[in-house]
C-alpha cells in the first residue's frame, strides 16, 4: 500500500480539529507512540499524533484521512503484544488517552458506559465501589484501556470461567473508517437482529472503525475466593494435572495459570522479590483461584482440588486466603510478561490456544519441534485452564533485529501449525496485529482471509484505518 505523507497543511488542519495542544509532531514525543509492549522490534514512527477528546473530532479526522489518503492508527495504552497499534505506514496515530471518562454506572441494567480510554483497573475499582464486578481481567489490567480490551477481545486469567472480553460487551459506539457514526448494541441484554456488527467490532483491532464508547456488562462479585499455588517437581505432571483436576473433581476454577520455573525465577530475581514457595524443588507451578459461597464451601473445594493435585504428584499445595498472601503470588504472575519482555529484547510472546484436552500433548510436541533449534529457548507461562498456554521463544544468540523477526516468526509458525492441527489457533488473546499475520493465513487458509478482506473493504474502501494489520491489503 502506498500512502500520502502528512503535509504541514494537514498538520494545520489537524490542529484546527483537535486544538494545538492535542497534536504532537516533536520526534521525541512521537517515539512514545511508535511501538507497543513487545518492544522495539516493531518500531514505526508516526508522522503526527493526535489526541481525541470527542467523537466529532474523529469523524472529521476520518474524512480528512480518506480525502488525503493518509493512514490512521488508533492507539490505547500501548500494552499490546502483537504490534496492533504500531503505525506501520507512518501517518497519523489517533490516541484515545484523553477520552477516559466513566460516563455511567447503571445499577439497574448492571452496565458501565465508558469512553474507550478508561484504564480497565479504574473501571474495576469504580464498579466495585457500587458492589458490582467486571469479569474481564487481562494481565495488563493496570495499564490497558477498556476500549482496547474490546477491540482486541482481550483475554486474561479469568477467561476459563467468565470468557474473554467479547462475553462482556453489550454495546459499542464507533466511527467507521469512512467517518460514519455507528451505534451497535446497547444496554439491552438480548439481540437477534441481523448480523452482529457489534461482535464484528470486538477483536477487529481497530481496522474497521474507531470505538468511541463501550457499554460493558457487569455482574455481582464472587462471594469468597482462595488461591492455590501448586508446585510440581515434574513439568509434565503439572501440565497433566491442569486438565485432570477439573475432570476428576469437577471443581471449576475462576483462573488456572501455569508457570514454568524459568519464568518464575526470572521474574522473582528481576523484581528482587522474596523466594517463591518451593522454588528450589519445583519445575512448574499451577496457580488457581477458587470461588465459594462461604468459608466452609471454599475450604471443601480447596481441599478437594488440593488433594487431587497432591495425588497427581504435586510437591505441596500453598493456600493463599488473604489479600496479602494472594498478592504475593499474583504479583509474580502479573509482572511476568513485562519482566521477560524487558529482560529479553528478543523474545517472541507466543499465544497459541488449543482445547484443554490437547494442552499436554501440544507441549510435548512443541518441545520436540524446538529440539531442532538449540539456539532458541522455549518457555511457558499462561492460562492453561482455557488452553491458552503461551509458548514463548527466546533468542540465545545476539541476532540483528530483522534476522530475529524472520527466524522467530518461522519457528513460531511451526508451533502455530501444530496448535492448529490439534484443534487450536494461532492467537488466543494477543491478537494478530503485525506479529502473527504470517501464521494466520497459514492456519485459516485463503478463503476466510478473503472474506475478512472483503469486510475490510466495505468498511474502509481506501484502506486508511490501521492498515497492515491482521492480513495484508491487496
Amino acid at each position: 500500500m502506498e500512502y500520502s505523507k502528512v503535509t504541514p497543511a494537514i498538520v494545520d488542519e489537524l490542529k484546527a480539529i483537535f486544538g494545538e495542544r492535542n497534536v504532537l509532531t516533536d520526534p521525541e514525543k512521537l517515539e512514545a507512540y511508535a511501538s507497543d509492549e513487545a518492544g522495539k522490534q516493531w518500531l514505526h514512527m508516526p508522522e503526527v499524533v493526535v489526541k481525541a477528546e470527542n467523537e466529532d473530532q474523529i469523524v472529521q479526522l476520518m474524512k480528512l484521512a480518506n480525502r488525503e489518503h493518509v493512514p490512521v492508527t488508533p492507539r490505547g495504552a500501548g500494552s499490546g503484544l502483537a504490534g496492533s497499534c504500531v503505525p506501520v505506514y507512518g501517518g497519523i496515530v489517533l490516541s484515545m488517552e484523553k477520552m477516559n471518562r466513566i460516563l455511567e454506572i447503571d445499577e439497574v441494567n448492571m452496565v458501565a458506559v465508558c469512553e474507550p480510554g478508561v484504564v480497565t483497573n479504574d473501571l474495576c475499582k469504580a464498579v466495585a465501589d457500587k458492589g458490582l464486578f467486571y469479569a474481564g481481567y487481562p494481565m495488563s489490567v493496570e495499564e490497558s484501556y477498556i476500549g482496547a480490551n474490546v477491540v482486541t477481545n482481550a483475554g486474561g486469567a479469568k477467561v476459563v470461567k467468565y470468557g474473554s472480553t467479547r462475553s462482556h460487551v453489550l454495546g459499542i459506539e464507533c466511527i467507521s473508517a469512512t467517518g460514519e457514526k455507528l451505534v451497535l448494541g446497547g444496554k439491552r441484554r438480548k439481540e437477534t437482529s441481523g448480523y452482529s456488527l457489534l461482535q464484528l467490532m470486538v477483536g477487529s483491532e481497530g481496522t474497521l472503525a474507531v470505538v468511541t464508547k463501550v457499554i460493558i456488562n457487569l455482574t455481582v462479585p464472587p462471594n469468597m475466593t482462595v488461591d492455590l499455588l501448586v508446585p510440581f517437581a515434574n513439568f509434565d505432571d503439572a501440565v497433566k494435572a491442569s486438565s485432570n483436576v477439573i475432570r476428576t473433581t469437577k471443581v471449576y476454577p475462576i483462573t488456572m495459570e501455569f508457570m514454568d520455573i524459568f519464568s518464575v525465577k526470572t521474574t522473582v530475581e528481576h523484581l528482587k522479590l522474596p523466594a517463591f514457595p518451593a522454588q528450589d524443588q519445583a519445575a512448574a507451578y499451577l496457580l488457581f483461584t477458587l470461588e465459594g459461597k462461604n468459608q466452609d464451601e471454599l475450604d471443601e473445594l480447596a481441599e478437594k482440588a488440593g488433594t487431587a493435585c497432591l495425588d497427581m504428584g504435586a510437591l505441596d499445595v500453598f493456600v493463599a486466603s488473604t489479600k496479602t498472601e494472594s498478592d504475593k503470588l499474583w504479583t509474580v504472575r502479573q509482572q511476568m510478561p513485562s519482566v521477560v519482555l524487558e529482560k529479553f529484547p528478543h523474545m517472541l510472546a507466543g499465544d497459541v490456544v488449543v482445547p484443554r484436552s490437547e494442552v499436554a500433548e501440544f507441549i510435548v510436541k512443541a518441545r520436540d519441534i524446538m529440539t531442532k533449534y538449540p539456539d532458541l529457548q522455549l518457555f511457558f507461562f499462561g492460562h492453561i485452564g482455557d488452553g491458552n498456554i503461551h509458548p514463548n521463544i527466546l533468542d540465545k544468540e545476539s541476532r540483528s533485529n530483522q534476522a530475529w523477526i524472520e527466524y522467530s516468526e518461522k519457528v513460531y509458525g511451526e508451533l502455530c501449525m501444530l496448535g492448529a492441527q490439534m484443534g487450536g489457533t494461532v492467537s488466543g488473546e494477543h491478537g494478530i496485529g503485525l506479529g502473527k499475520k504470517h501464521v494466520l493465513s497459514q492456519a485459516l487458509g485463503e478463503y476466510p482471509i478473503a472474506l475478512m478482506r472483503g469486510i475490510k473493504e466495505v468498511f474502509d474502501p481506501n484502506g486508511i484505518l490501521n492498515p497492515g494489520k491482521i492480513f495484508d491489503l491487496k
Partner: protein
Amino acid sequence: MRIAVLVKQVPSTDKVKMDEETGTMVRSAMDAELNPLDLYAVEEAVRAKEKTEETEITVISMGPPAAASAIKEAIAMGCDKGVLLSDKVFSGADTWATARTLSSAIEKIGPYDLIFAGERATDGETGQVGPSVAAQLDMPVLTYVSKIREVNGARIVVERAVEGGHEVVEASLPALVSVVKEINEPRIPTLKGKIRAKQTEVPVMTAQDVGLDAAHAGLLGSPTRVVKVFYPSLSRNGTIVDGRDPERAVNALVQFLKDKALV
C-alpha cells in the same frame, strides 16, 4: 522451649471503610484477617521451632469469637495450638487493659520462654500492647527486632532496627520480642496446615478463667479513651509555573525554592 505468639484480628487492609459521619471503622466479620504485621511474629516463632527440638508454640489472641479464625491462620502456618481470650467484659479495651488481659492469661497458661509480638496492629497503630505485656509480666522486652542471632536456654541475642543502623542486644529469658517486617518473609500456609488448623479446637478463656474482674478489663479497666477520630484535612494549594517561557519559568522556580529556603 515454650513459645507464645500474641496476635490480633484486624479488618482486611483492602476492605477498610470509614463511616464518614461518625469517623469510626465499619466492620463486618467477613472482612477480617490476621494482622499482617503479626505474620512476621508467627513466622519467626515457627522458624525457631524448626531450629529447636521439642518446641511448642501457643497463639494467644484477645477478641470476639470470630477472632478464632486469626488464631487458626497462625496454626496453619505451623503453630501448635491457640487460646482465644473472649468475653463481653473485654470489649472496648485500650492497650493497657488489653495487655493486662493478655498477661493475666499468660500467667495462667504459661510460663513461656519466649513471647513474640508484631510491631503493631494495622488498625490501632499503637505498638504498645507487646511492650506493655512485657512490663506487666516484668520481663525484658526487645522491640523492633530485625534479626534473631541466637537463642539458647538462658538468653537471646537479637539485632534491633534503630535509626541509622542496627543495635545488637542480649537479654535473659524469658523475654518478649516484637519484630519488624525486615526479619523474615512469612510463609503461605500449606493445605495440610490449613486442614490441621481447621481440625484444631481453639479453647476460649473468659475474664473469670484468666482471673480478672470486670473493673480491670475492657472499657472499665481502660485508663484511656478515644475521644474523637477524624480525617486530617489535606490542603495542597499548588503553584503552577507557566512553562511557555522557559527562562522565566526557571527563574520563578529558583526564586520559589530560595524563598522557601529549600536551596
